[in-house]
C-alpha cells in the first residue's frame, strides 16, 4: 500500500504530499496513489484517467457497491487491456480495498487508519513473524477493525502496509490469498471511511486514543523528521514543476506501464510509510530505527509475505492474534472481533449501500468527540439520486466476501504481483517494470464490473477503447439512441484517487468543465461555458460539524483550511487558493477525532471537503437572530374565491410545531385587500385582535410590539386565528389588492429582526405603491417573434427586496392566480431578497384539486424544511480564476460575496467563471464556497464546500472533461439573462450557437475523422439534445401558446433550481412502467424500488400496449396506451378496463398487488426530496390532456420546432457554413 500511496501523492501535487507525509495519507492514499498520479498531469495519462472516470462516472458510488466483486471478474476477462494501467491499478486496489474496507469499522477515520496503516509496525513485527504477520495481520486486522479495539486497528494498519509488500512478493509467487489481503487493507483505508463510521464510531477513537497516548510523546520527534523530509521531497515539487512522481506517471502513461511509475513513486511513499511506521513502532519497540532500516525491513517483509500469503482469511485471524502480541502492552481485545470478519463485511456493504456515496469522505464520529451536533440526515436518495442509488443494491453484502477472496485474486492476481514487485523493487533492487501493466488492466476491468451500476450501465461497454471514453467521437446523426438507459451521472474529475475521494460531492458542487483549461484562450477555443453549479445548503446525510475556538483560515485570502491544502511541515500549511504559507495554530495540532497531537493533516477539516463549523462571535455582526416568520395573505374577493386560505391555515396548524426554530421563534400574520389588517396576538388576550390600517399611502404599524409574537407563548391565540381566518372574509366584496403597501408594512415589521416573509397573492396588485397593469397580450402568446415584458414593469419590488435584504428579511412569493399577475414584476421581491417563488396557475381549491394538493404538499415541505437566516455566501477560487456572473436568488454584495437573507435547502446557484491569468504554474485549481448562516436554533454556522479540479492544456482534454448537464444548466441561466436583457430570440440563437460553436470547435480538433456527420465527443453527445430540450422548454419556446406568467415562472425556476431538479425540467425522464421488474432494483428504506430503463422522449417509444411515466420535475404524467395490458390497468390503476379510467386521475390507488406496489414505490422514490411536489396526472391516450404530455416529447417534431434529427441537420448545416 505504502508504495502506491507514495506515488500518487507526488503526482497529486502539493496538497497531497502533506497528507501523505503525515502518514495518514499512506493508508488511504496508497490505493489511490497509482491512479491519481497519472491522472493529474499527464496529457496522455489523462485519457487513460478519464476512461475510468467515464466508466464509473461516479467512482465513489462504484466502489461503494459491494457488488463489484462478483461482476468484476467477468468483466475483467472480457475487457481488453489498455495502457491505462495506472487507473486500473488504482481501481483494483480500490476494489478490493473497498470491499474489505467496509468490514473495518475502524476505517471510518481515514486519518486513524492511515496512521495505523503505517507499515513500519509490520516490519518490526515481521522480524518475528514476517510472512504470517502480514497475511494474517491484514486480513485479521480488517476484520478486527470492526471490533474497534485500538490495537486491532493498529494491527490492521500494519497489515495493510505489510500486505502491500506481501502482495508484491506474494503475488509473484502466485498466492491468491495475499491478494485478498491487499484488497482488504487498501479498502479499509480508502474506500468507505464514511460508511464504516456509523458502525464503529466509538471504537476507532478509542483505539486511536490509546495509540496516541502511548505513542505520541516518543514518536513525535521522529515523525517530524520524517515529515519534513517527506514534504520537502514530495510536496514541494508538485506545486512548481511536475514532481518526479508526475514525470513518472507520464512515462507510465506513455509506455502504458504503471509499474514503472509505481516503483519510482513507490519509494517515497514507502519511505513515508516506513517513517510513520517507525513513529508508531517506536512507541512499541524501536523508536530510533533509521529510515533506511525500516525500509529494508519493510522490503524484507514484503518478500517474506509469500509465506503468510498462503494463509487464508481464517488463518488471518490467528495471525492477528499473533500480531497483537507485538503490541503487547495493548489490550488483546481485537481477537474477538477478528472472529467474524464476514459479518462486518456484510454490514459494511449494507451501510455503503444505504449511505450516500457522495458523502464518502466524511466521518461523523468526531462529531461526538467534538461535541458538535449532527445535521439532520435526510435520505440522500432523492437529493443525490445519481451516485447513491447505485450502491444500494442488496446483493452487495453477500457478494463482497466471496468476491474478495476468490474472484479478484483469480484474475488480477498474477498480473498484480508483478506490479507490486516493481514497486518494491526500487527499494531493494530494480525490478522490470513491464509486468505490472497487466494487473492494472485486470483490476480496471474489475472495477467497473464490481458495481452493480456498471452492470446496469449497458452503454458503458466502451471501456476498452484506448481513448478516454468521454472523448470517443460520436456521430450524432447516425446514433439513433443517444440517450443512455440509465440516468446520466456527473463526470468525475480526473484526479488521483486520493483527491477524488476527498473531493466535494457533485450534488453540492459541480463544474461545467471537470478539466479546467489553462488559459482563457483555450477556453475560448473550446467554446464551452465555464462555471459552477452550486447546491450549498442541500440536505446532507452526513456532515462533519466542527466546533473549535479558532477556525483555521488563510491569512491573506481567508480561505478555510481544506483537504487540498498542503502541509509544508507540521507547523505550516500552504493555501491552495493563493499559495500563501500560513502557520498552523496550536489548537489545530490536536486532533479531536483521534485525540492525538501533532497531526494537523488528520483533522476533520482536512479530511472532508464538506464541513460545517460552529462559528464564534467573530462571525456575528449582532447576536444570532431568532427564527421569525411573517405571513402576508391576500384576502380580497379573488383570494377568498380561490380558497387557498383553508389549505394554508390547515397546513400551518399541522406544522406549527415543526416550524424550524427554538424557544425564541416568533410568528405574525397580516392580511390585506384594499386595506391592511394586522393581528395582535399578544399573550394574555382572550382572542386575536384585528387592527385595520386603511391609510395605504403612508403605512404605519398600529402597535409595534405585539404583531410578531412568540410562537410558544401565544400558541393558543395563533391557533384561534388560523381556525378563524378562512371564514373571516367569506363575504368580502373588496376586489382590490394593496400588495405594495402591505409589503412595506411587512418590511417595517420585520426590519428589527429579519426573518422570512411569506406572501400569498392571487391577482395583480391594484392599489397603492407597486400597482401593476396587465401587460400581456393574449394574442401574442404563441408569437414566434418578440416576447415582451419578461422584465419588471416597475422597480418598486426590486427596491423593496433590496431593503429587505439589507434587513436580513427574505420574501417568499406564493402566486396563486388564475389570470395574468405580472410575475415578472412580482418575482423581483423574491429574486433579490433570496426568497423563493411558487406559482400555481389557475389555482382553485375545488375546481383544480391537483393544484390544491400540490400547494398542500409544497407547504408542508416549505414550512418544515431547514432554514438559515442572515446568511452570506462567499465563493473563492484559485488565483487566476475569477467570478464573472452569478445566477440565482440573492443580492450580490461584492465580487464574490452573495447576500442571502435566508437560505433554504432547495436553492441552487450558478456562477460563471473567467480565467484572468494563465494557470500554467498549477496543476490543480480549487473552488471554495463558504456559507455563513444562522441556524434556526440560533447558532452561527459556516458550511464550507471545496472542489478540486485538474488543469489541462490541450483542447481534447477540455472536451474530455465536459459535464454536459452542468453546461446545459449554466447555459440555461445565461439564456434567461439574455432573454431579459436582450430578447428571447437572441437567447434562442445563442443557445443554438453554443451547440454549433462547440461542435465545430471539436470537429476542427479531430481532423483525422471524416466529416461525414455531426461529430461530438462522447462527453458532449447529449449536448444537442439538451439544447433542443431547452429550446422547447416553456421558458424559451416560441410558436407554442405560452402564458407570459408561465414563461416567467419557468425562467425563475431555471435561475434558482439546483441542477438535479433543473435537469428534469429541461429533459424529462420517461420510463415504461407497465412491466416493472425487480431486476436492478435498489433498496431504499426497506422498500424495493424498481429501476426501469430510461426511454428517449419520442412518440416512437410509446406503444399502445404500454403505460409510461414521465417525470418532468414538477409534474408526473402517466400515459396509458389504448390497448394497454389490462392487468396493469386493473392492478395498478384499479379500473377494470381502459374505457373506465377517468379523465382526471391524480392518484394511484393503494392496491395490494405486486405491480401496484412496484409502481407506487417507484413513484414515491422519484418524488422524495423534491422541492416542488410533483402532481401526478394519468393521461389516457385519447384524452385532451395528452397534448400536455406530448409537448414534452422533445425529440419529436412540432409545428413550431425541429425534431431532434432535424435539429442535428440544422446544426450540421450551420457548422458547414
Amino acid at each position, binding site marked *: 500500500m505504502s508504495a502506491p500511496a507514495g506515488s500518487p501523492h507526488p503526482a497529486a501535487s502539493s496538497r497531497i504530499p502533506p497528507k501523505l507525509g503525515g502518514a495518514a495519507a499512506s493508508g488511504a492514499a496508497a490505493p489511490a496513489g497509482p491512479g491519481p498520479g497519472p491522472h493529474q498531469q499527464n496529457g496522455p495519462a489523462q485519457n487513460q484517467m478519464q476512461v475510468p472516470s467515464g466508466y464509473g462516472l461516479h467512482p465513489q458510488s462504484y466502489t461503494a457497491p459491494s457488488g463489484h466483486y462478483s461482476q468484476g471478474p467477468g468483466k475483467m476477462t472480457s475487457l481488453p487491456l489498455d495502457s491505462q494501467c495506472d487507473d486500473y491499478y488504482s481501481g483494483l486496489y480500490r476494489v478490493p480495498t473497498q470491499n474489505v474496507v467496509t468490514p473495518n469499522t475502524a476505517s471510518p477515520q481515514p486519518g486513524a487508519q492511515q496512521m495505523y496503516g503505517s507499515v513500519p509496525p509490520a516490519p518490526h513485527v515481521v522480524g518475528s513473524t514476517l510472512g504470517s504477520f502480514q497475511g494474517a495481520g491484514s486480513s485479521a486486522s480488517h476484520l478486527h477493525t470492526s471490533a474497534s479495539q485500538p490495537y486491532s486497528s493498529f494491527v490492521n494498519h500494519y497489515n495493510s502496509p505489510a500486505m502491500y509488500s506481501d502482495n508484491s512478493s506474494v503475488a509473484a509467487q502466485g498466492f491468491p490469498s495475499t491478494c485478498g489481503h491487499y484488497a482488504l487493507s487498501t479498502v479499509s483505508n480508502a474506500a468507505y471511511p464514511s460508511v464504516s463510521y456509523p458502525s464503529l464510531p466509538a471504537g476507532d477513537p478509542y483505539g486511536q486514543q490509546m495509540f496516541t497516548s502511548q505513542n505520541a510523546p516518543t514518536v513525535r520527534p521522529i515523525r517530524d523528521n520524517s515529515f519534513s523530509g517527506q514534504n520537502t521531497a514530495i510536496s514541494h515539487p508538485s506545486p512548481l514543476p511536475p514532481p518526479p512522481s508526475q514525470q513518472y506517471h507520464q512515462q507510465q502513461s506513455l509506455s502504458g506501464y504503471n509499474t514503472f511509475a509505481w516503483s519510482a513513486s513507490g519509494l517515497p511513499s514507502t519511505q513515508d510509510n516506513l517513517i510513520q511506521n517507525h513513529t508508531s513502532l517506536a512507541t512499541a519497540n524501536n523508536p530510533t530505527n533509521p529510515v533506511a532500516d525500516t525500509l529494508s525491513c519493510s522490503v524484507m517483509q514484503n518478500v517474506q509475505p509469500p509465506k503468510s500469503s498462503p494463509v487464508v482469511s481464517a488463518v488471518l485471524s490467528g495471525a492477528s492474534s499473533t500480531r497483537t502480541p507485538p503490541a503487547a502492552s495493548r489490550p488483546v481485545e481485537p481477537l474477538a472481533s477478528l472472529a467474524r470478519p464476514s459479518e462486518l463485511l456484510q454490514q459494511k456493504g449494507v451501510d455503503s449501500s444505504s449511505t450516500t456515496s457522495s458523502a464518502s469522505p466524511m466521518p461523523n464520529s468526531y462529531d461526538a468527540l467534538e461535541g458538535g451536533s449532527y445535521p439532520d440526515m435526510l435520505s440522500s436518495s432523492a437529493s443525490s439520486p445519481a451516485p447513491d442509488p447505485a450502491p444500494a443494491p442488496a446483493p452487495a453484502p453477500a457478494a463482497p466476501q466471496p468476491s474478495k477472496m476468490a474472484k479478484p485474486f483469480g484474475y488480477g492476481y498474477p498480473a498484480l504481483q508483478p506490479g507490486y514487485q516493481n514497486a518494491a523493487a526500487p527499494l531493494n533492487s530494480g525490478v522490470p517494470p513491464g509486468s505490472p501493466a497487466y494487473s492494472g488492466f485486470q483490476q480496471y476491468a474489475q472495477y467497473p464490473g464490481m458495481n452493480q451500476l456498471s452492470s446496469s450501465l449497458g452503454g458503458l461497454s466502451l471501456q476498452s477503447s484506448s481513448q478516454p471514453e468521454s472523448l470517443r467521437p460520436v456521430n450524432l446523426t447516425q446514433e439513433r439512441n443517444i440517450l443512455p438507459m440509465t440516468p446520466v451521472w456527473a463526470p468525475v474529475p480526473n484526479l488521483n484517487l486520493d483527491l477524488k475521494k476527498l473531493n466535494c460531492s457533485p450534488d453540492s458542487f459541480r463544474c461545467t468543465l471537470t478539466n479546467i483549461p489553462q488559459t482563457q484562450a483555450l477556453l475560448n477555443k473550446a467554446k464551452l461555458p465555464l462555471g459552477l453549479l452550486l447546491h450549498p445548503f442541500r440536505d446532507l446525510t452526513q456532515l462533519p460539524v466542527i466546533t473549535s475556538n479558532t477556525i483555521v483560515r488563510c491569512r491573506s485570502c481567508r480561505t478555510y483550511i481544506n483537504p487540498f491544502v498542503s502541509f509544508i511541515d507540521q507547523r505550516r500549511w500552504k493555501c491552495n487558493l493563493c499559495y500563501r504559507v500560513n502557520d498552523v495554530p496550536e489548537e489545530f495540532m490536536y486532533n479531536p477525532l483521534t485525540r492525538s497531537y501533532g497531526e494537523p493533516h488528520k483533522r476533520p477539516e482536512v479530511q472532508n471537503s464538506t464541513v460545517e463549523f460552529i462559528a464564534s462571535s467573530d462571525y456575528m455582526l449582532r447576536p444570532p437572530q431568532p427564527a421569525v416568520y411573517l405571513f402576508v395573505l391576500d384576502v380580497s374577493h379573488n383570494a377568498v374565491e380561490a380558497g387557498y386560505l383553508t389549505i394554508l391555515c390547515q397546513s400551518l396548524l399541522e406544522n406549527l410545531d415543526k416550524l424550524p426554530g427554538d424557544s425564541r421563534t416568533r410568528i405574525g400574520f397580516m392580511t390585506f385587500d384594499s386595506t391592511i389588517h394586522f393581528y395582535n396576538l399578544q399573550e394574555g388576550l382572550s382572542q386575536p385582535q384585528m387592527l385595520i390600517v386603511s391609510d395605504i399611502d403612508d403605512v404605519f404599524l398600529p402597535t409595534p410590539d405585539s404583531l410578531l409574537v412568540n410562537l410558544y407563548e401565544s400558541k393558543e391565540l395563533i391557533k384561534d386565528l388560523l381556525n378563524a381566518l378562512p371564514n373571516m372574509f367569506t363575504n368580502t366584496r373588496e376586489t382590490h389588492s394593496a400588495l405594495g403597501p402591505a409589503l412595506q408594512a411587512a418590511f417595517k415589521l420585520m426590519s428589527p429582526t429579519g426573518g422570512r416573509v411569506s406572501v400569498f397573492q392571487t391577482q395583480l396588485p391594484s392599489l397603492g405603491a407597486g400597482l401593476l397593469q396587465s401587460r400581456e397580450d393574449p394574442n401574442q402568446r404563441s408569437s414566434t417573434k418578440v416576447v415582451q415584458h419578461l*422584465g*419588471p*414593469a*416597475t*422597480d*418598486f419590488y*426590486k*427596491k423593496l427586496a*433590496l431593503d429587505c435584504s*439589507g434587513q436580513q428579511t427574505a420574501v417568499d412569493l406564493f402566486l396563486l392566480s388564475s389570470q395574468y399577475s405580472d410575475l415578472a414584476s412580482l418575482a423581483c421581491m423574491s*429574486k*433579490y431578497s433570496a426568497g423563493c417563488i411558487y406559482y400555481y396557475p389557475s389555482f382553485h381549491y375545488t375546481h383544480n384539486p391537483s393544484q390544491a394538493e400540490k400547494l398542500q404538499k409544497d407547504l408542508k415541505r416549505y414550512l418544515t424544511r431547514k432554514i438559515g437566516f442572515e446568511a452570506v455566501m462567499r465563493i473563492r477560487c484559485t488565483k487566476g480564476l*475569477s*467570478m*464573472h*456572473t*452569478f445566477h440565482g436568488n440573492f*443580492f*450580490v*454584495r*461584492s*465580487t*464574490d*460575496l452573495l447576500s442571502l437573507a435566508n437560505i433554504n435547502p432547495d436553492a441552487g446557484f450558478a456562477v*460563471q467563471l*473567467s480565467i484572468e491569468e494563465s494557470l500554467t504554474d498549477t496543476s490543480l485549481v480549487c473552488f471554495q464556497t463558504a456559507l455563513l448562516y444562522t441556524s434556526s436554533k440560533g447558532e452561527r454556522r459556516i458550511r464550507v464546500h471545496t472542489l478540486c479540479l485538474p488543469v489541462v492544456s490541450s483542447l481534447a482534454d477540455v472536451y474530455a472533461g465536459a459535464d454536459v448537464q452542468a453546461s446545459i444548466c449554466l447555459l440555461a441561466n445565461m439564456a434567461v439573462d439574455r432573454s431579459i436583457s436582450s430578447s428571447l430570440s437572441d437567447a434562442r440563437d445563442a443557445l443554438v450557437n453554443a451547440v454549433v460553436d462547440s461542435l465545430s470547435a471539436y470537429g476542427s480538433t479531430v481532423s483525422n475523422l471524416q466529416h461525414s456527420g455531426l461529430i461530438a465527443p462522447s462527453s458532449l453527445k447529449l449536448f444537442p439534445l439538451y439544447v433542443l430540450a431547452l429550446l422547447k422548454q416553456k421558458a424559451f419556446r416560441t410558436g407554442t401558446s405560452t402564458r407570459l406568467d408561465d414563461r416567467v415562472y419557468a425562467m425563475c425556476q431555471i435561475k434558482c433550481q439546483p441542477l438535479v431538479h433543473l435537469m428534469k425540467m429541461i429533459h424529462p425522464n420517461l420510463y415504461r412502467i407497465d412491466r416493472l421488474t425487480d431486476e436492478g432494483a435498489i433498496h431504499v428504506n426497506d422498500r424495493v424500488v424498481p429501476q426501469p430503463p430510461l426511454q428517449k422522449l419520442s412518440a416512437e417509444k410509446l406503444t399502445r400496449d404500454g403505460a409510461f411515466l414521465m417525470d418532468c420535475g414538477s409534474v408526473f404524467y402517466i400515459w396509458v396506451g389504448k390497448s394497454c395490458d389490462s392487468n396493469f390497468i386493473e392492478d395498478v390503476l384499479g379500473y377494470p378496463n381502459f374505457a373506465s379510467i377517468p379523465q382526471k386521475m391524480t392518484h394511484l390507488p393503494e392496491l395490494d398487488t405486486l405491480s401496484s406496489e412496484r409502481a407506487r414505490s417507484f413513484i414515491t422514490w422519484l418524488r422524495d426530496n423534491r422541492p416542488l411536489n410533483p402532481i401526478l396526472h394519468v393521461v389516457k391516450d385519447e384524452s385532451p390532456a395528452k397534448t400536455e404530455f406530448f409537448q414534452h416529447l422533445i425529440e419529436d417534431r412540432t409545428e413550431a420546432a425541429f425534431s431532434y434529427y432535424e435539429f442535428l441537420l440544422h446544426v450540421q448545416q450551420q457548422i458547414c457554413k
Partner: protein
Amino acid sequence: MAFTFAAFCYMLALLLTAALIFFAIWHIIAFDELKTDYKNPIDQCNTLNPLVLPEYLIHAFFCVMFLCAAEWLTLGLNMPLLAYHIWRYMSRPVMSGPGLYDPTTIMNADILAYCQKEGWCKLAFYLLAFFYYLYGKHHMKIQTHRENHVMTEAEGSDAAMSQRMPRIAGHHQKLGKSEEGLYPRFLTEDSPADTLILDF
C-alpha cells in the same frame, strides 16, 4: 457679436468640460471601488445615480450652445457622445429614480467592465475636448480681436488711436505667424486679447 458669443461658448464649454472630467474620474474611481469590494453596490449606485443626469445635461447644454453659435464642427464632434447619452439613458434598466446604475446588476462582471471602460473613454474624450475648446476659445478670441482691430483701423482716425495701432498690428502679425506654431506660445502671446474680450 456673434463671434464673441462663440468664444463665450468655448469658454463655457471649457469650464464645464473640466467639471465633466471630474465626473468621469469620479465614476472610474467608484467602479474601481466596487471591483475591489470597498463599497456596497447599493451605496455606490446611490451616489452615482444622481450624477448621471447632470452630466448628460451639462453636455447637452453646451451642445445646444454650440448649435446656437453655429459652431458646426464642434457640434459635429459632440454629436456622437450626445447620441450615445440619449441611447444610454433610453436603454437604462427599469428605475423609478434618475440614474443608470442598478445595484442588482452592477456587480455583473460584464456590466462593471463596461461601465469602467465607458468611464475611461469618456475621460479621454473630455480631455481631448478640453484642449480643443481651449484652442477654440483662443481661436475665437483671435478672430474677435482681429475683427476689432479691423474695425478700429477702419474707423479710428484718432491720433492716440493710431499711436497705439502699430503695436497691435505688430501683435497681430505675430499671431498670424504663430497660428500654426506651438500652443503655449500662442497662449502667452494672447493675453492682451483676453482683456479685450473681457472688456467687451
